[in-house]
């Protein structure tokens, strides 16, 4: 009798403790999420009010009625103290840049990894190491000389100049090499018996097998391309080639109170939306790609 009541009491206590622990966990996670979501919420709200409400500093916590006007102005005309580049143009530039960088990196990394893994030729490992070493040379540490090369080649203020120098990729090459090494030798033998050459094998066997890796890399590289900052800042001063991340901070300038903050916030939403959407909708590939490429 007393044993069972003790047991029930203990079970009850444990259940209560577990319940309390669960609540604490939920509260911690919700607090964490709030810290990340609130800045975006505030920006969304700001983009629905008129310029004076924000300029006065009285941003309410609920949406206003100016959303359509603000987003139309941002999309078509731009804002900021000087009339900036329209967000429509900047988004198109960012999109082209991000897509070209992602596709380009994947394409040349696929072919170079294929060469290193499936062929044997003089200087093979030298080439591999040359690609590998570029991991240690981020754009930021070679700004000035790279800029001079761009000037010499006449690539400043061109989309090609924005994209091509960023296409080389040691990480993508490493990832594909790693993956190609796991393709069983029997596949290659079977292909050879069937009379398929290296190009046939690449297109019919290797590419389909690499699908998930390509998807995962695409997400990461698209975001990498979209979020470029220093490079476009250096290479482009032609308004028609402005990308949205750089364009947005140019609109803000020194952060003057007189800025058209409502339009700036609408542009910020435009700048955020595409990469966030890519991460959210392709989360599975993205997490896989991230943890596998960088480790």
């Amino acid at each position: 009798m007393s044993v069972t009541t003790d047991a029930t009491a203990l079970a009850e206590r444990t259940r209560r403790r577990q319940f309390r622990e669960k609540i604490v966990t939920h509260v911690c996670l919700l607090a964490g999420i709030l810290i990340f979501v609130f800045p975006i919420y505030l920006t969304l709200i700001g983009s629905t009010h008129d310029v004076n409400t924000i300029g006065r500093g009285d941003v309410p916590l609920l949406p206003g009625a100016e959303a359509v006007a603000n987003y139309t102005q941002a999309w078509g005309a731009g804002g900021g103290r000087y009339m900036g580049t329209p967000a429509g143009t900047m988004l198109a530039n960012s999109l082209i840049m991000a897509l070209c960088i992602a596709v380009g990196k994947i394409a040349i990394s696929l072919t170079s990894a294929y060469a290193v893994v499936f062929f044997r030729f003089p200087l093979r490992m030298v080439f591999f190491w040359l690609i590998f070493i570029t991991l240690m040379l981020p754009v930021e540490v070679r700004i000035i000389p790279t800029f001079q090369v761009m000037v010499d080649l006449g690539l400043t203020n061109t989309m090609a100049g924005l994209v091509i120098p960023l296409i080389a990729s040691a990480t993508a090459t490493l990832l594909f090499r790693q993956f190609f090494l796991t393709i069983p030798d029997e596949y290659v033998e079977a292909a050879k018996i069937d009379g398929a050459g290296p190009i046939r094998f690449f297109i019919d066997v290797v590419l389909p097998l690499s699908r998930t890796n390509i998807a995962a890399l695409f997400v990461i590289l698209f975001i990498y391309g979209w979020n470029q900052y220093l490079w476009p800042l250096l290479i482009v001063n032609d308004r028609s080639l402005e990308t949205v991340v750089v364009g947005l901070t140019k609109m803000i300038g020194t952060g003057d109170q007189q800025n058209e903050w409502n339009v700036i916030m609408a542009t910020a939403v435009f700048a955020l939306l595409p990469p966030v959407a890519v991460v959210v909708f392709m989360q599975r590939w993205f997490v896989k790609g991230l943890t596998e490429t960088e480790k």
Partner: protein
Amino acid sequence: MQKKVIFKGAVLPYLLLAPQLLITGIFFFWPAGQAIYQSFLREDAFGLSVEFVGFENFLDVVRDQTWLDSAGRTLLFSGSVAVLALGSALFLAVQADKHIRGADVYKTLLIWPYAVAPAIAAVLWLFMFHPNIGLFGRMLNGLGIPWDYRLNGNQAMLMVIMASAWKQVSYNFIFFLAGLQSIPRAVLEAAAIDGAKPARRFWTIIFPLLSPTAFFLLVVNLVYAFFDTFGVIHSLTHGGPGKATETLIYRVYTDGVINLNLGSSSAQSVILMLLVVALTVIQFRYVERKVHY
């Protein structure tokens, strides 16, 4: 490593490698070589003559008190960003790893900030903490705390640290979560049965098993804080007020692009390159030694 079965081809492999190698050569090795070459030269003010000055550019950089100040500032900045971003990410990952309802929703909601560019993160923080238009900025001033990160150097530093760390948490979160999920449940359950309390389980089992991940992330976060935060600083404070938020990478930019002092800027670039090389080597050595615990 090499496959046993391979294709024959004398030209094809070189053709396949050509695009990558061309781009790497033109845009990585050539400029990096130029940076090293220029770091030993000095141009006169009009760019008419160039002379070889040996290590003088480097010595000038290292002897320059303002550069040393930048270096110190960069250490403070990078350390703070790394500690903040790693600490909060680990905390959140431990919470999200528990068996609770809605864990997947929580994970999604904590992962998306990865997509936010550093410069955009800075803009979001500006909207919150601008002294005139920001909700919190005005609140602080309303409470009698004089807040203006455009005038107060410490506040500016705080702003760039917060915005930079905010952006990096989700990246760390993803890796910590993956690390936590790879810890065998049986080990944790055995410890629990032996009577180890959650805190003790964390410090004696989870944390040591996570240490390779944590170390890898520490290096990544430091590299991020050294280089990728250029966007945060450029859009938020432009290195100011004064030089209060001028990190080493920001200084390479101002000396090279704004002041056109090529020799000094190149020398600074070379110093930063050595730093990256050192960090990468440390990382690879450590990972190789430590990854098979």
